[in-house]
């Protein structure tokens, strides 16, 4: 069972702006029954102001596809075509309070329909990322290399599973998985190389006075560690520092959470090693 947010369920059970605008000013259609979801978006646009005065949708798909479409119409009504053209799948997912990762492709479908509608309004051919040959990678869901690369780039995807969540590619027979991996490897080889250069410049400094060291640890905790914990309802506090040993205690939802052991090493210690000192060891103590 999917863990849908209340917002998703609200837009699924009572979708807004269902239907089709008669003789619309713009139409965007994506997907098909074979793919498992499809969306037809129709817009009414004020020619003078280029404002979207009305938007309606018809969607074939699951709860999150219907909810994504519904919220999309709410987002874009009142926007200018220009403003709407900047709406990404992230905005759609965020407005819904998040989507299960396996369902992120539903928000991508919303974005694609909108892009097509904008292009249709402007009388342009459908927008393409790069000029050149597009190659169909996933035969089951007709997903091209361009679409995959774009998803990787825009959503910082690192795994084949991630690509499947956003684009569905690789989610059918699975034959294209090696090709998706190749695209990931190629993309990140290029981009990580760029990042390495940046990272090298901000190498942690080792010769810190004790006071500076303490404040850097506290800063790192505040900046890098607490926000993701807080996002899950938890928190952490610095208890003591004894040379390379840093003692922390978990708070809020982290208390009694079985995965704090992992969090301690994979997040807290890793970040402190990255930003302060490679030799740091973190231990949990009761606050």
């Amino acid at each position, binding site marked *: 069972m*999917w863990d849908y947010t209340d917002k998703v369920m609200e837009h*699924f*059970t009572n*979708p807004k702006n*269902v239907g089709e605008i008669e003789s619309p000013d713009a139409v965007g*259609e994506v997907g098909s*029954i*074979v793919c*498992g*979801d*499809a*969306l*037809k978006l129709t817009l009414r646009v004020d020619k003078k102001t280029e404002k979207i005065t009305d938007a309606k949708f*018809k*969607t*074939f*798909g*699951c*709860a999150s*596809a*219907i909810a994504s479409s519904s919220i999309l119409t709410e987002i874009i009504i009142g926007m200018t075509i220009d403003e709407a053209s900047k709406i990404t799948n992230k905005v759609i997912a965020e407005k819904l309070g998040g989507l299960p990762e396996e369902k992120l492709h539903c928000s991508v479908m919303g974005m694609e329909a909108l892009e097509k509608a904008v292009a249709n309004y402007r009388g342009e051919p459908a927008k393409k990322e790069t000029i050149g040959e597009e190659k169909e990678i996933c035969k*089951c*869901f007709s997903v091209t290399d361009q679409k995959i690369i774009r998803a990787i780039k825009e959503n910082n995807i690192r795994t084949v599973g991630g690509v*499947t969540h956003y684009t*569905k590619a690789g*989610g*059918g*027979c699975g034959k294209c998985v090696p090709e998706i991996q190749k695209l990931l490897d190629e993309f990140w080889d290029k981009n990580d190389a760029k990042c390495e250069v940046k990272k090298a410049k901000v190498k942690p400094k080792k010769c810190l006075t004790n006071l500076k060291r303490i404040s850097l640890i506290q800063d790192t905790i505040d900046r890098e560690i607490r926000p993701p914990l807080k996002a899950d309802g938890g928190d952490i506090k610095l208890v003591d520092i004894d040379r390379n040993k840093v003692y922390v205690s978990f708070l809020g939802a982290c208390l009694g959470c079985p995965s704090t052991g992992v969090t301690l090493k994979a997040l807290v210690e890793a970040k402190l090693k990255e930003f302060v000192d490679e030799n740091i060891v973190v231990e949990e103590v009761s606050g």
Partner: protein
Amino acid sequence: MKKIIYTDNNATTMIAPEVFDAMKPFLTERYGNPSSMYTFGGSIHKDVEEARGKVAHLLGASDLSEIMFTSCGTESDNAAIIGTLRTYPEKKHIITTKAEHAAVLNLCQYMETEGYRVTYLGINEEGMIDINELKSSIDTDTALISIMYANNETGVIFPVEEIAEIARQRNVVFHTDAVQAAGKIPMNMTKFPADMVSISGHKIHAPKGVGALYIRRGTKFKPFMIGGHQEHSRRGGTENVASIVGLGRAAELAEEHFDDEIKRVRELRDKLEKSLLEKIPNTRLNGSKDKRLPNTTNIGFEFIEGEAILLMMDAENIAASSGSACTSGSLAPSHVLRSMGIPFTFIQGSIRFSLSRYNTEKDIDHIIKCLAPIIEKLRKISPYGN
């Protein structure tokens, strides 16, 4: 919690109250190990054997030693298939169907990576296999035929008796995954010449985590779960006593309720099916109407998607399942319905209702009342709806 209208019994079933009562002593005071020498433990051996007797009776087995308890249907399937392949290491060919449960299908696909050749028999639009295709697939290299008794998604019953006869003539071991059939329709192993039969507890009102494998006397078998002397050294591991006792009681109850299942449950299923097909346009029955389990119906609602239907039904406290892509765990819709060649417009909106003896006419009326507006609402949202 509101009363749930539970029509997903091919997924799992409610533990019968009688089953729970039978299990209780073994979850509390009678915790001994049946292998022990002292009475406190050793006496429990008798309870395990009594349960074995009840399962043997359900299947019409001629000897208690033909029943081996396992942890689930999947283990039974694995034990049957891997046990047989280990027995005949020189033979490298398996025959199965495209409609199998993942427990058999994925295992066979895995065996392909281990150097086995697998023939996957196709199914037609009725969900039925072609016996001639089976016959022509058997060769001297064939180690095993594994074909399900009844399909979990459509309820379609395969001609397993005929298959067993063919396998016997050709001297090939025949295993059938009867997880969906056992306890719903009578079975008699003295007349049905299959060599191995898998069953599962939680599909027949026993708890999850227990199953059994029928192994016909004289069938060569190498253990899959290697360990202690339990189950005649064919399946190591201390017996899951409480659940085995539960399975025994469930087997007994299933026999008592066969008539109810075959008459009343079938009538309820037929009423549900007929009403939905008549009342709602653009619907179809997926699978054979006649050669079917009495409790299952799989209906395709065109132009809408299954998960959406299920969630709307959930809001009405109705539990069922779907073959749509969104509900399958993968992104591809049901392999069974696709193999049947059912149009995608129907597959994505396919809903399986699977009843049990605990369903009432009131349940069915509630579903019939709720479904039409749900389908209508979703079709209004769908771009293909009009």
